């Protein structure tokens, strides 16, 4: 039996994440992959603006904090100057699919050889639960107090579906971390993303359906149930694109 212990790439600090938030699980999975591939010393992570803004303190690899939405551009700068290093971004839905739409689409279509970890929890967590580009129709948030009305606020963005249309994308996969089985699938997907990068195969994005118990007004258990009942039907899990670009 292998011992359950903290991955080396995951810093031994207390995070600021709320109880029941799945950021911690995803951080751990990324760290495990970095450890298993033995690439901590060759990895540069880019964190976003949003709840994971301070993720630079939580990973032991070199880290860069980007402006809101710009992580894919920052990652491009690092990667172009250091093509042999591993570069990943860790972004939320507001960061990636609203203010940073241009940056993610163009990094993807360029086939930028980076790995993007995309946390979709259908809300802006850090600023207190406003409507996100991924907020579901009818979902109540601070800025959609009567529920997201698609005739006013439009429709949620399905990022994996959208990006899988682009030729530069080597991997677009949607996973979740609501139970051990899915956690294992998520880890495999993240590992695949880093392996694709290692083999210089192009852009990889792993979308993780995540929870925000605090802003959803739910207990951690209820929040996991919501992912299953409401999010997965709208954002089906699975591989949307897989295959080397180059």
């Amino acid at each position: 039996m292998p011992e359950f212990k903290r991955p080396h790439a995951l810093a031994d600090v207390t995070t600021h994440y709320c109880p029941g938030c799945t950021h911690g699980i995803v951080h751990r999975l990324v760290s495990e992959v970095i450890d298993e591939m033995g690439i901590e010393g060759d990895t540069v992570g880019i964190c976003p603006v949003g709840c994971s803004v301070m993720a630079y303190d939580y990973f032991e690899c070199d880290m860069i904090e980007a402006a809101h939405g710009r992580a894919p551009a920052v990652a491009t700068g690092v990667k172009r100057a250091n093509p042999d290093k591993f570069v990943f971004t860790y972004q939320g839905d507001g960061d990636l699919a609203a203010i940073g739409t241009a940056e993610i689409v163009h990094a993807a279509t360029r086939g930028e050889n980076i790995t993007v970890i995309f946390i979709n929890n259908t809300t802006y967590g850090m600023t207190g639960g406003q409507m996100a580009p991924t907020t579901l129709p009818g979902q109540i948030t601070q800025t959609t107090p009567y529920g997201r009305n698609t005739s006013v606020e439009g429709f949620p963005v399905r990022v994996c579906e959208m990006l899988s249309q682009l030729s530069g994308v080597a991997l677009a996969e949607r996973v979740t971390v609501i139970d051990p089985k899915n956690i294992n699938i998520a880890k495999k997907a993240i590992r695949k993303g880093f392996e694709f990068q290692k083999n210089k195969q192009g852009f990889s994005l792993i979308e993780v359906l995540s929870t925000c118990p605090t802003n959803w007004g739910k207990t951690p258990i209820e929040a996991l149930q919501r992912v299953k009942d409401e999010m997965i039907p709208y954002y089906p899990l699975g591989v949307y694109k897989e295959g080397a670009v180059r």
Partner: protein
Amino acid sequence: MAEKSLMKGNEALAEAALRAGCKCFFGYPITPQTEISAYLSKRMPKVGGTFLQAESEVAAINMVYGCASSGIRCMTSSSSPGISLKTEGISYIAGADLPCVVINVQRGGPGLGGIQPSQADYWQVTHALGHGDFHALVFAPASVQEMVDTVTKAFDLSDEFRMPAVILADGLLGQMMEPVQFDDAEIKLSDASNKPWAANGHGNKRKHNIINSLYLQPDQLEDKVVERFKRYEKVKAEHSEAVADYCDDAETVVIAYGSTARLAKSAVEAARKSGIKAGIIRPVTLWPFPVKQIQKACENAKNVLVVEMSMGQMIDDVKLALNCSKPVEFYGRTGGIIPKPAEILAKIKEMGGKD
């Protein structure tokens, strides 16, 4: 030294950047700076560097942020409206204490404005290049050769003081050809070897580096900003630069920068020929502003004339430098109109004898 040849200001600057070791360039097309991108798209692949056309000015400056974070010399260039878009990234670069070079080949504004030469971004570049308490080094070359010479200096000082450097040119300098000369040294693109702070993979040899501008505790943020301003004081004390001509006995001192200074110098020389004691001082650095040099140049002056291709922006800093000790007048054209030496001369004559 290699043979002198004619080059456009934009192209000469681009070549000089390579020779200064700039390994990566991230840009976006906009007139009148596009030749910089076009030139580097041709040259970069041949010398082992990176040229990348970004999807936006915003992305370009953030690519610079990433590249600079990893300790590599890099540059972006744009023209006025594009610089407005870059200000977000420049503020983060300043906040994370990163070196980089940003070129602004100014055109008329506000808004889409025009594409002819202008100096209407002085306030932006020296006083408001983004949100927050910070400065960037600002150089204002006045000839194509000086575009070349300034680039190396900009990279070096930017590295030394870990702050962004801006070269403030304009459409005239960017588009004109003049003879330039490069030294024969072999091109050596930068690496991160002298930047222990760089986030380029710790190689399991050191603790992780973090490039960041976020400090949620006010006392930490204050400490950080205060430390940065101490560095700025050193820059101010050691690196302000200006060129003065005919100022010793000048009764009217003209102050102008960049391409306008050339026009003003022609006017000053014409004034001297007609017996008027005129002089000129040209700030080469706009930040740090050459306060002492200006005070000295104006010591014996009865009055001072500031000439700009704007409605008058640098004039504010001149007045501050002179502490209201001399009357300061202004002559300027804007919107892309280049003031004629004859117009400046007329203004000098009008001021002659006034005190």
